[in-house]
């Protein structure tokens, strides 16, 4: 029998579970799900969805046995980086929602339906959303309701409506409400004008009222029937309601950062060359670009075929970055929202269901370009804390030091007292060199900035 370790978030589904064996990820299908799984394959739905890159493909494992009752073991294609809905920009969440509904529409044509529509079942793979839960399908029986309706509304429609109609930052509520934003809260937060929008009025306002109306009602149901036309109408209406949603963004903090820097064209090109030389030197398999803005430097890495996560705190920068990925059909870059001073924590059951950002590392290389002054001065983070954090998440660090005389730093100091005596290059080097050794350091021409290419000092040394 093979030794295995269950994947941390895989415990709710009674149809099967995910497990790791020798660093590979597998999915065990329980005997209770045999009929549905066989139908998924024999109906042609699996083939259709995988051909369209809407569902993750898998291989059936014949020679792997584990010590528990199961029907089959499959090996799904591995997603290199798991991201969560509260890290996605508006359009990423919208595309994930539309992908889920598209799958539901196709499944109906093959006599199946989704029994689960959690936003956590969608991941970004090769630049596009893809459904990762192979066991979320069941046979459709004429007259049945759409079981994951409430879940879909809470996981997708509620945050999208709040982001679109109220404030983009309300999307972060998904981090607190792991099973989706409650509809009564969503209804309270949405402006009254949304009553005039049929999709939001019906699926959120009326839905929330209906939940309240039937709360604790002690009445038995005789039958739950819904014609196929109504079922398809419901899905179609959710699809068109979401398709119409948009985020009319205003200028945010960093949205036009690159037209507002003190780089000359020459120094900007020089910086790019240094980053490219760093990539040639360290040859990373994957890169996390922290404070990536719209991903200019992330693209130096992704264009070399390196899997690159492009993090930024600003939802607008991430949105622009994602739209650019779609436009250019980029597959190796994934833009995500992340506040480095309060990064995604480990949440859910036993604080262990969804991974923190550190748990999703370590990564080969981190870019920290034009970032350190924001952390040290705007957020009072000492260099030793920053150096220690980066040493935990990466092997190589490409980091830019910006001196106090730089106009960007001076701008940060405009509204605060300069209590940052230790903010100087000597102290920066003193703290970072406790954890890293220098492979190369280079001043950027015409800028007074320095880029360091650092390698983590092995704990054995």
């Amino acid at each position, binding site marked *: 029998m093979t030794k295995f370790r269950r994947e941390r978030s895989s415990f709710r589904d009674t149809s099967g579970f995910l497990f790791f064996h020798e660093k590979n990820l597998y999915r065990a299908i329980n005997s209770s799900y045999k009929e549905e799984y066989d139908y998924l394959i024999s109906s042609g739905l699996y083939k259709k969805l995988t051909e369209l890159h809407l569902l993750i493909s898998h291989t059936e494992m014949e020679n792997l046995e584990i010590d528990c009752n199961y029907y089959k073991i499959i090996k799904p294609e591995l997603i290199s980086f798991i991201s969560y809905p509260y890290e996605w920009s508006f359009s990423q969440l919208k595309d994930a929602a539309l992908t889920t509904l598209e799958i539901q529409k196709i499944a109906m044509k093959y006599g199946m339906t989704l029994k689960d529509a959690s936003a956590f079942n969608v991941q970004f793979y090769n630049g596009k959303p893809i459904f990762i839960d192979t066991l979320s399908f069941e046979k459709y029986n004429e007259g049945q*309701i*759409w079981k994951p*309706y*409430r879940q879909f*509304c809470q996981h997708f429609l509620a945050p999208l409506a709040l982001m679109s109609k109220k404030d983009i930052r309300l999307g972060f509520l998904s981090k607190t409400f792991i099973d989706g934003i409650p509809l009564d809260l969503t209804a309270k937060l949405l402006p009254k004008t949304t*009553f*005039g929008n*049929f999709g939001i*009025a*019906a*699926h959120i*306002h*009326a*839905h929330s*009222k*209906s*939940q*309240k*109306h*039937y*709360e604790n*009602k*002690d*009445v*038995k*149901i*005789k039958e*739950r*029937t*819904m*014609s196929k*036309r*109504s*079922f*398809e*109408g*419901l899905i*179609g*209406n959710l699809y068109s309601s979401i398709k119409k949603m948009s985020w009319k963004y205003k200028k945010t903090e960093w949205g036009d950062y690159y037209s507002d820097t003190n780089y000359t064209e020459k120094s900007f090109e020089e910086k790019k060359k240094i980053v490219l030389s760093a990539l040639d030197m360290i040859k990373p398999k994957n890169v996390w670009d922290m404070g990536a803005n719209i991903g200019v430097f992330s693209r130096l890495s992704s264009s070399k075929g390196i899997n690159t996560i492009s993090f930024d705190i600003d939802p607008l920068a991430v949105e622009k970055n994602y739209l650019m990925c779609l436009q250019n059909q980029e597959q190796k870059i994934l833009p995500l929202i992340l506040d480095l001073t309060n990064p995604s924590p480990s949440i859910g059951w036993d604080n262990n269901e969804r991974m923190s950002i550190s748990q999703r590392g370590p990564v080969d290389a981190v870019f920290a370009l034009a970032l350190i002054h924001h952390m040290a001065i705007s957020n009072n983070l000492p260099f030793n804390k920053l150096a220690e954090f980066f040493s935990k998440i990466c092997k190589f660090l490409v980091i830019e030091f910006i001196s106090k005389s730089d106009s960007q730093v001076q701008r940060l100091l405009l509204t605060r007292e300069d209590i940052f005596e230790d903010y100087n290059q000597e102290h920066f080097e003193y703290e970072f060199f406790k954890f890293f050794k220098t492979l190369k350091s280079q001043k950027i021409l015409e800028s007074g900035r320095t880029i360091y290419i650092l390698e983590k000092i092995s704990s054995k040394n």
Partner: protein
Amino acid sequence: MLNMKISQIFFTILTLLLFSQFSFPNAFAYIDPGSGSIIIQMIIGALVGVGIAVKVFWFKIKLRLSSTFNKNDSNDQI
């Protein structure tokens, strides 16, 4: 264009009806935190289903009328 306006008016009236509480039948409820979600989806599904049927019906009438008029036009030309 006219078709779109009619469907919009239709949906708005039905949405308003939803909020008037008339649409929540007591007979279908059962003890389940999701019962409100089940009932509302049946109502919305039915409304949208009817809406689609009206649209299809209207489209057919339009098609019939336009083909009749086109026939008359072509007859005139002859």
